[in-house]
């Protein structure tokens, strides 16, 4: 569903990712891990067309990102950014309804079908009861769910999320990732999210994409654990990765 072909990413002379040829298929939840500044957000932004490629190509369902118009792209991939949307007067339902923007006319007129999709999307993330609340009244976890509902309402086969677990407490992190997994498996979507929670990535995701600059490895989770890449990335003089225990320990 997402195909990387000799992809090269970076800024000017600073190359972050090189020679990436791999793919992510539908129905899988993939975690994108890597140290700060190694290109996690850059990769996500490139897939959604917000970032110029230095070389190679990204293909979504067989079509090159560069060739797709922004309207076509909007019907193929939805993005949940780290931007906080905390606007008073803006109801959850209105935010989710904006996800229908690629499908509505110039003034954004909602058809009956659009309204149903909005309600279903709220339902899917368990936020139906919050539909009429405004965005400034909600917790970080609730906001994140609404933004995911907005992405669902966009009805795209691919969903990308940039550090969706960042401001959440432990139960919320797990719940969110379980939710993402369910959405991927039930609806056959390809869901890719960047995260610093290695334990969650290894426990709940089907695949792990790991940036070990300038290479990105995409492997099924079990293979990734055995591969040794995780040790390389997260081991230094003070800490080490324990493949048996699947977690990082202090030496």
């Amino acid at each position, binding site marked *: 569903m997402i195909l990387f072909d000799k992809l090269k990413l970076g800024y000017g002379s600073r190359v972050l990712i090189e020679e990436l040829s791999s793919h992510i298929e539908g129905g899988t939840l993939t975690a994108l891990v890597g140290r700060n500044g190694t290109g996690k957000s850059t990769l996500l932004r490139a897939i959604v067309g*917000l970032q110029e490629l230095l070389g190679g190509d990204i293909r979504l369902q067989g079509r090159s990102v560069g060739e797709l118009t*922004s309207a076509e792209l*909007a019907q193929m*991939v939805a*993005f949940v950014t780290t*931007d906080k*949307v905390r606007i008073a*007067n803006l109801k959850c339902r209105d935010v989710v309804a904006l996800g229908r923007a690629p499908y509505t006319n110039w*003034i954004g007129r909602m058809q009956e079908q659009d309204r149903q999709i909005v309600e279903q999307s709220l339902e899917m993330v368990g936020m139906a009861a919050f539909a009429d609340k405004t965005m400034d009244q909600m917790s970080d976890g609730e906001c994140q769910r609404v933004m995911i509902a907005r992405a669902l309402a966009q009805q795209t086969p691919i969903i990308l999320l940039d550090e969706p677990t960042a401001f959440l407490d432990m139960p919320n992190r797990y719940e969110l990732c379980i939710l993402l997994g369910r959405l991927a498996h039930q609806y056959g979507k390809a869901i890719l999210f960047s995260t610093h929670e290695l334990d969650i990535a290894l426990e709940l995701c089907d695949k792990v994409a790991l940036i070990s600059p300038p290479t990105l490895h995409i492997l099924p989770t079990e293979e990734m654990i055995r591969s040794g890449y995780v040790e390389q990335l997260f081991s230094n003089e003070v800490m080490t990765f324990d493949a048996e225990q699947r977690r990082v320990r202090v030496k």
Partner: protein
Amino acid sequence: MRGRSAILFTILAVLILLLFVVDMMVGSVGISVRDVVAALTGGECDPMTRKIVVDIRLMKAVVAILAGAALSVSGLQMQTLFRNPLAGPYVLGVSSGASLGVALFILGAPLLGLGGSHILSSFGVAGAAWLGSAAVLAVVGVVSSRIKDVMVILILGMMIGSGVSAVVQILQYLSHEEALKSFVVWTMGSLGDVTFEQLWLIVAAVAVGLTLAVAVMKPMNMLLLGEAYARTMGLNVKRTRTLILLSTTLLAGTVTAFCGPVGFIGLAMPHVARALFAQADHRVLMPAAAMIGAVSLLMCDIVSKMLTLPLNSVTALLGIPIVVWIVVRNKNIV
């Protein structure tokens, strides 16, 4: 909630109609409701009264409605575009540009010995102001087409505005008393200096500006979530930005050219619209802001005529408490 909006829109429409008539009643000579209505509908009344109502006050009231709507809508656009509740129609230097045009016209021409020039005086204060604001916005527009970050555009606009104001101050410093006074009077704002021919210019410019504003209502809703979200929902952000800048140039630029830099309407009235309608949807906020802008400027005009005060003092005294209230309440509104 639908019901609430409908009721509010009805109330605003009635208010505009009422204030429109009241605005024509007050002035140096008081005129009764009956005479105003008679003069407008061609009923029986004193020919002198008819002349005052139809030739002078009607136009002023129409200008108040157009200018109020234009300033408020352009303020709403700037607040959403820059995601800043304290942005207004003048944030990009529209008014400084206009004042430079007027300063060059009123103050600069005598300094250069062109005071009596026939070509210049026929050009008019309004023409000079229009050119000035268009020039500043053209500079902002050209620069902004190369810039990604919208905050940089905001800072650029403010800096260009400040630079232009500095030049205006130099002109003021060098000028004679008489020229200085007519310049200062222009900066106080007035709805009464519009001629009948100019009115059509205002109507046309405001109509195009408002049409553009209506066209960007959905894009502005998308921009509420930030530019990254807007782009991934298929919005051409650069094109939208250009349309919004163009709309604001037409709306705020035209009003400033003909009425002077009328303050606080564009900054404060979009907030009144948000608070009254309790909505963030620009499909509601845009017409709401336009109507509230019209109501407020009619009110300010009535007060300024009743107390014979400069228009800008009245709009400031009305607008400042609203802005203070916004800051104190400290809610995320855009």
